[in-house]
């Protein structure tokens, strides 16, 4: 493994795990605050127990999210020093604000976790809300930093020099809103379905049904609404990509040839040598329509992009297809849930219904990973779109593959530990809480 590939793999691995920890770490506090609110309002102790059970999950994910985030703040420099040397002053603003938001989150979490029955209950509840809000704000800020890499702004690049730097303009680059929106909704959808799925499993096994049903309801409400809203933000993101990163959109769609009535591709296996797609379903004009609101305008294909500026087409395409497929599936079962709530209440306790949600447990996060792959692999070979290549940014230090193996070991161990801890938390629910 050469050092460049090792560095990219290590970064992908680190972000791939961090994105899961941090999505859960930012969304679960919201669930926790809702359940705590219900407890204060209804005085039903079950909600207190749910809040406490979830808060333990939050603590576990916050700790893993915090340490993996700390690692990333160094890895940016350890692996990509040339990138950070130039980009740091331009796109670093959201990171410094994120530092602040994250700090607030840690303080508020200290209050919430250790403050049960020590503070006024509304103050205690408020600290839980602050955990949620600052978590979401942190997420938005970090994604806005990433969006700058896709849509660089706030500087002039003249003869290899970065001039007239404006960090605020860089932060509010053209892609920040659509990307932050898409990621935030994705975090709610993925976490909502994952949490709901685990509680559905417990209902299915007839364990503490009352406790798990109440938990399920809170989680799925967020998951389902987010899944239903997501296609709208996805559309915004794709339109942005067409404008700013045509190579990325072309790779997502395996769109080899620029021609009028550009087709939307469903599935299919791209053949990059023959420049065609095998076994895909093509819907002529639909891609043009989605991007330009009319069926005729041609969408830029890979034939208009130099080979050396193209991302890996199959990877980007498969990842995109996977993300969309899962998104559609979650949207459907989200709608199904609301339909059942509205018309067919009996379904809610049926085994087939529960099984559907159990099956969906990991799907949201698979979609998040796939979407992340689309945005990162789809930007290659650039680390700053159109300005700096990833290969120019990599550290000169040899032997990065050892560090990659080490990180692989660490992240897998860490994730196993988290799964182990969560399963023990769930197993102990009847012992830890009075759930009847």
């Amino acid at each position, binding site marked *: 493994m050469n050092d460049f590939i090792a560095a990219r793999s290590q970064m992908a691995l680190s972000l791939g795990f961090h994105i899961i920890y941090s999505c859960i770490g930012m969304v679960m506090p919201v669930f926790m605050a809702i359940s705590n609110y219900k407890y204060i309002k209804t005085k039903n102790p079950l909600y207190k127990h749910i809040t406490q059970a979830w808060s333990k999950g939050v603590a576990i994910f916050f700790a893993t999210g915090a340490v993996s985030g700390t*690692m990333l703040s160094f890895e940016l420099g350890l692996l990509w020093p040339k990138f950070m040397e130039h980009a740091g*002053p331009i796109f670093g*603003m959201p990171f410094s604000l994120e530092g602040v938001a994250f700090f607030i989150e840690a303080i508020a*979490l200290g209050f919430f976790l*250790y*403050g049960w029955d020590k503070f006024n209950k509304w103050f205690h509840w408020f600290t839980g809300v602050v955990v949620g809000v600052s978590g979401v704000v942190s997420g938005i800020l970090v994604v806005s930093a990433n969006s700058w890499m896709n849509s660089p702004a706030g500087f002039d690049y003249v003869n290899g020099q970065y001039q007239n730097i404006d*960090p605020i303009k860089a932060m509010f680059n053209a892609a920040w809103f659509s990307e932050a929106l898409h990621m935030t909704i994705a975090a709610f959808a993925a976490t909502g379905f994952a949490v709901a799925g685990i509680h559905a499993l417990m209902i299915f096994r007839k364990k503490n049904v009352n406790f798990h049903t109440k938990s399920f309801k809170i989680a799925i409400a967020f998951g389902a609404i987010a899944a239903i809203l997501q296609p709208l933000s996805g559309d915004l993101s794709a339109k942005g990509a067409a404008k700013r990163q045509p190579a990325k959109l072309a790779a997502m769609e395996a769109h080899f040839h620029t021609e009028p009535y550009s087709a939307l591709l469903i599935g299919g296996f791209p053949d990059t040598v023959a420049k065609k797609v095998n076994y895909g379903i093509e819907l002529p004009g639909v891609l043009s329509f989605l991007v330009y609101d009319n069926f005729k305008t041609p969408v830029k294909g890979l034939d208009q992009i130099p080979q050396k500026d193209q991302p890996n087409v199959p990877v980007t395409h498969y990842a995109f297809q996977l993300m969309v497929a899962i998104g559609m599936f979650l949207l459907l079962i989200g709608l199904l849930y609301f339909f059942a709530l509205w018309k067919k209440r009996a379904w809610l306790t049926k085994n087939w219904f529960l099984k559907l949600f159990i099956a969906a447990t990991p799907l949201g996060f698979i979609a998040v990973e796939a979407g992340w792959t689309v945005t990162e692999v789809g930007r290659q070979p650039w680390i700053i779109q159109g300005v700096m290549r990833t290969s120019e940014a990599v550290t000169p230090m040899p032997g990065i593959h050892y560090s990659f193996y080490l990180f692989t070991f660490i992240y897998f161990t860490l994730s196993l530990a988290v799964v182990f*801890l969560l399963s023990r938390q769930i197993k102990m629910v009847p012992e830890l809480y009075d759930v009847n």
Partner: protein
Amino acid sequence: MLTVVILFLFFAILLYFLLGGADFGAGIIELFTSTDNKSRTRRTMYKAIGPIWEANHMWLIIAVVILFVGFPTIYSSMCTYLHIPLLIMLLGITARGTAFTFRNYDAIKDDKIQDLYNYIFVYSSFITPLFLGITAGSVISRQIDPTAGDYLNTYIYSWLNWFSVAVGFFTVALCGFLASIYLIGEAKEQFDIKRFTKKAVIMNAAAVGFGGLVFLAAEVEHVHLAYWIFGNPVSLVAVIAASVSLMLLWYLLIRGKTKIIRILAAFQVSMILLSVGYRHYPNIIMIKGGNNLSVLKDHAPMTTITDLGWGLLLGSLLILPALGYLFYSFQRKNNIV
């Protein structure tokens, strides 16, 4: 605004040393506690740092962010030439933070697994400040050599030298000292106060011992530490102030003032950082051949510094009161219970 940003950087590093350092120290104390008393130590420690430990480690993030936004060349040089010690420090931070959380949030407290968490926690509490100290020592050791050309001289000897390693152990001893002084104030029973006092004595002796080694190693590696510190009035005064306050600390401890002494301990560490930091200012990374990196010269464009400065100022308006209230309320509530 550049001054504001530099001050924030200094205070973020200082606070990380003090608060994060005391956290690491708690693990170091646990490492050197006899098996019989380990769980007592753990209980006191958990009550003392449970609610605040996450926040304590945020200072590192703030410092890193200031470095990479405001002083990108300094950050990228550190990351390149001190890649390995930083990496080990990071692994330590990860292992430590997660083990600490996991051992508390494991719903089933079976001894075997708890022992594993404890084992990881205490050793990473030792390794992390060791490599933090090695990194800190390396930036002023003049061993970083971008022109070396070969792997060993560029990426290994930049930090693996007597001076950096001695600073590493000195840091570990300081962390242990900070933590034991802090825990004396948290302990409720005379038995624990005695135990932690004994630890403080040992850690103090260790700090003095390793401090001596740092000077010795400095001479071996041709780092003019003695000259830096004793050759200018500010550093000299800082060192004297630290020594006097150390005597005062022991006097007050004997008189049973278990809370006030932590301020003195923090003061000593601050003075040590100040005495070294001041002499180098504005240089922050000393490079072989004298092409040093300076916070006054190698900073980001002023627009970035201005925005960063405002961000930090506004951010601290939010953070500091909240953090103060967090410390205050758990301090008070712990004393009621």
